[in-house]
Structures are given as C-alpha cells and as structure tokens.
C-alpha cells in the first residue's frame, strides 16, 4: 500500500513536470519550489543525525570530550553572519577552512592534475607490434595536448610557426573533443528520459518489465 501510494504520487509529480513541455503552469512551479525546500530540509535532518549528533552533541553530553567544544564553537561562529554587529566573527571558521583546505589540496592537486598528467603524456609513439591506429593515436595525443595548450596560451599572439600553427592544430583537436562531449551529452540526456519512462511505464503502469 505504502509503495503503491508512493508510486502514484511520484508518477503524478513526474507528469506535472512534463506539463512544462507544453506550457509553463502553476503545478510545475509548485513542484519546482517543493524540490528546493525538501532538499534543504532533508540536508538539515541528515547532517544533524549523521554528523552533528554522533560526532559533537553525544560526545559532549557524555562529558569526557570537552575538547570538541573547539570545533563546536568555531562552527557556531558561522551563525554570527546573521547578526550584522558581529558578523565579522564568521570569518574565523571560513578562514580556518579556506586556509587548511587550500593547503591540503595544494600538493595533491599538483600531483593529480599536473604531474600525473605530464607523466601520462609521455608515451612511446611507436613500439614493435603496436597497431597503426595506436601509433597514430599516440601521436595525436602528444601533439594534440601540446597544440591545445598553445591554443589556451594567451600571453603570446597566435602567429608564426610555433604559436600560429600550434594554436590552429589545437583548436581542431579541441573541436574533436567537444564533439565527443556533445555526443555523450546527448546520450546522457536521453538516458535520464529513459529512466523516467521506465518509471512511468514499468513501476507505475506495469506495461513494461
């Protein structure tokens, strides 16, 4: 019964959203607003029950984890944002997080997004037994990365053999990449629609498996 009512409610909201395809209407607007309220309310409930209660409130109430008052008070300082006279105090927790997060992220981002990528680009163009399309692919990958980097380098005018030709090759490579992204984007959007049709025709109407 619980499941059946739920699926009917879900199906009606699904149709309400699809009604937007014909024309903007009040039911769509209602659903649009509900989503904002529910997601924030859900977030509050989950955050309290899974993080704040077991990691802060319960240990503090048990009486032997007073050191947790430090993160507790720092966290509470966020709320001063709503009190104009002392709102500057909210900069303390923000500053604490900003600084430490930047510090923690620095070496790891350097490794993940820079060093590993440079390392990954160093592949042999040819090895015995390598099929032709891989040889071509590796060449395109290495030269393409360099050319695309040149295209994004705006400190020099894109003229001459190196910067001019390089950036021209770069934009071709980028277009091939964006084309692939567009193809995948189409696939992704259709997949989301498929999910809803499976819900309506399968879970709700039971006309498909």
């Amino acid at each position, binding site marked *: 019964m619980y499941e059946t009512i739920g699926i009917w409610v879900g199906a009606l909201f699904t149709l309400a959203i699809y009604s937007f*395809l*014909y024309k903007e209407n009040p039911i769509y607007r209602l659903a649009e607003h509900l989503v904002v309220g529910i*997601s924030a309310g*859900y*977030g509050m409930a*989950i*955050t309290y*029950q*899974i*993080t704040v209660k*077991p*990691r802060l409130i319960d240990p503090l109430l048990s009486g032997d984890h007073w050191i947790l008052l430090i993160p507790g008070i720092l966290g509470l300082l966020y709320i001063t944002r709503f009190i104009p006279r002392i709102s500057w105090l909210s900069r303390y927790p923000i500053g604490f*997080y900003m600084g430490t*997060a930047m510090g*923690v*992220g620095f070496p*790891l*981002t350097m*490794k*993940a*997004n820079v060093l*590993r*990528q440079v*390392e*990954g680009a160093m592949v042999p163009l040819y090895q015995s037994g390598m099929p032709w399309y891989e040889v071509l692919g590796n060449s395109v*990958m290495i030269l393409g990365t360099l050319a695309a980097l040149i295209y994004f380098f705006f400190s020099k005018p894109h003229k001459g053999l190196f910067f001019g030709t390089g950036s021209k090759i770069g934009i071709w490579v980028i277009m091939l*990449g964006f084309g*692939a*992204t567009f193809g*995948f*984007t*189409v*696939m*992704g*959007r*259709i*997949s*989301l*629609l*498929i*999910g*809803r*049709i*499976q819900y309506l*025709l399968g879970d709700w109407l039971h*006309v*498909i*498996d």
Partner: protein
Amino acid sequence: MSAVNIWEKMLNIDRRWIFLGIAVVSIVPFFINFGMPVVTTTEVEDIFYYMDDLGPDNAIFVSFDFAPGTQAENMPMAVAVMRHAFHNNVPVFMTANWPLHHGMMLAAMEYVFNPSTVGFYQEVPFDDWRELREADVTAKGELVEAWENQGNQLSEGALGWVFEGRDYAAMGYAPVFNLVILGMTVSIETQYPVDAHGNSTGEMPMLQEHKSLREVDMALTSSGSGACVWWVTYAREKIGLPIAFGLTAVMATDYYPYLQAGQVIGQMGGLRGAAEYEVLLAENGITPSTDKAFTGMDVQSAAHIFIILLIIMGNLAFFAGGFHKKTLLKGGR
C-alpha cells in the same frame, strides 16, 4: 508556396513537435524490445575483472556521489558493482558526498534488497544477528551456516544473504567529503562513528578488519558531481587507493586523462557503461539477467538515430534554403 518558404517553415516548426517526436522514439522501443547486443569495452572490463579478483578478505567502497537528477545513469552502475561484491562476499562500505546522495544510497539498498527485484539479496539487519556476533561467529561462511541453523531460510529468488556490518555498511553522508576521504585514510570510524541506521560502526566486523582506506582495495565513485575528482586527488594520490569511475555521460569524456594516466582503473560512462557492466555480470552468471541499463539501450539507439536525423534535417533546411547567406532567421517557438 516557394521552396524557400518550405525550408523556412521547417526551421520554424513549433518545438513541441520535436518534443513529441523524442517522446515517441523513447517509448515505442520498450514495446518492441529489439534486445540489440551491447559490446563491452576495456574501460568497463578493467573494473569488472579487478572486482572479480576480490574476495571476502578484501573490501571496497561504493560512493554515491549523485543526486536524484542523474539516478537513471548512476544508480545502475552502483547497483551492478554492489551485486558483484555481494556475489563474491566482498564487504561494501557505502558513502555519500551530499545529503541528497545519502538518499540515493538508501534507494540503492531498497532496490538490491527488495524481493520484487529479480536477483535480490536478502538483508539481515545489524541487530538481528547480534547473538552470533557476540559468539564471535563473523566469518561469512560460518555465519550463513549458523544463521540458517537458527531456522532462517533464504527466500525464493534471493541470490544470498547479506549481513549488515559483515557484508555492507551504510555509512552515508558526511560534510566536506573531500576531507572525509582524507580522514578515512587515517580512520574510517572517526569519520563515521555511527552508520545511517544509527549502528555503532566500531562494532562491525568489516570495520574491525578494514580500519582505514589503506586497508581497502577499491573505491567506486558513481558520480554525477565533481566528487569523483576528490577520490582521485585525496585517496588515489594520497595513499594509492585504486579508484573506479562510474560517471554520467556528460562528465565521462572529461576524465579520460585520469584513465590513460592510470589514476583510475576503469570507467563506466553513462547508461552505456552501466549496461556493459550488467552484460558482464549476466554473462558470468553473477546475476540471472541484465537490468534496467541494458533494457534502456534499445531506446538509446532509437533516440540517437532520431537526433542525428534532426541534425541532418536542420542542416539540410538551413543550406538548401540558403539561410547561410542570409541574415538571421525568425525564431520559432
């Protein structure tokens, strides 16, 4: 009516006709059911075979890093890997990087443990097997035996028992998830003293055996958000944890650099990636049949053909009507 007018009319067609067209091509194939084969790629096979080598001594993370908006793509990936893990008795830690993603984790469990799902797993909540735990019966084989000796019977159609705390732990959401990942490289229990059901994680056998991410063998991030990058940056680069990606199609092309550089072991891209994993599961007898992602691939074929036709028709009308030489077209609805 001049030829040019026909092209102009065509280009200014009410877009609701296109909407109707896409609706029709997305519904009809469900009733015809072509069942076209899905050929697997190394991107997905690499995850599958890596997973297949794992056993009860290993453990994996399945991170639900997607919201309901992309569940059609991300859910089948997470579900497929969960089923693979349960089949091989690999303990699964489930996390989420955002509150709504926490809900998706619960939805995945509801699906995998639901008796109406073909090939479901029968869940045993943490409290229900407390006695056995206290008697130190925690190894999967003897646990199942002891549990069945207590008079419990596997339901018809169920593929096996899964014990909460032994086979899975629903950890859920924690704020600033990138730092939570970092924190779990030191201790999982500190980041999650209790799970989503309020159970103490410290009492869970799987957590006692795998105390930090350093003692875990893989993390799959089924991701519709940038959280997948956090797993690479904060777990792979910090402690070398093998990462597998399950990405929405929109994101999939962006992360090929990670794949080629060996920072991720494989990647499922969109519904197609999930369908490939389902095919591998079914072909290897891990699930009785393929699931929703595979079924959706017929529709995906029809819709892609329809959109390609739209692109061709749009270009045909544009060039045949000579609009490439003219000023802007009047906009249609």
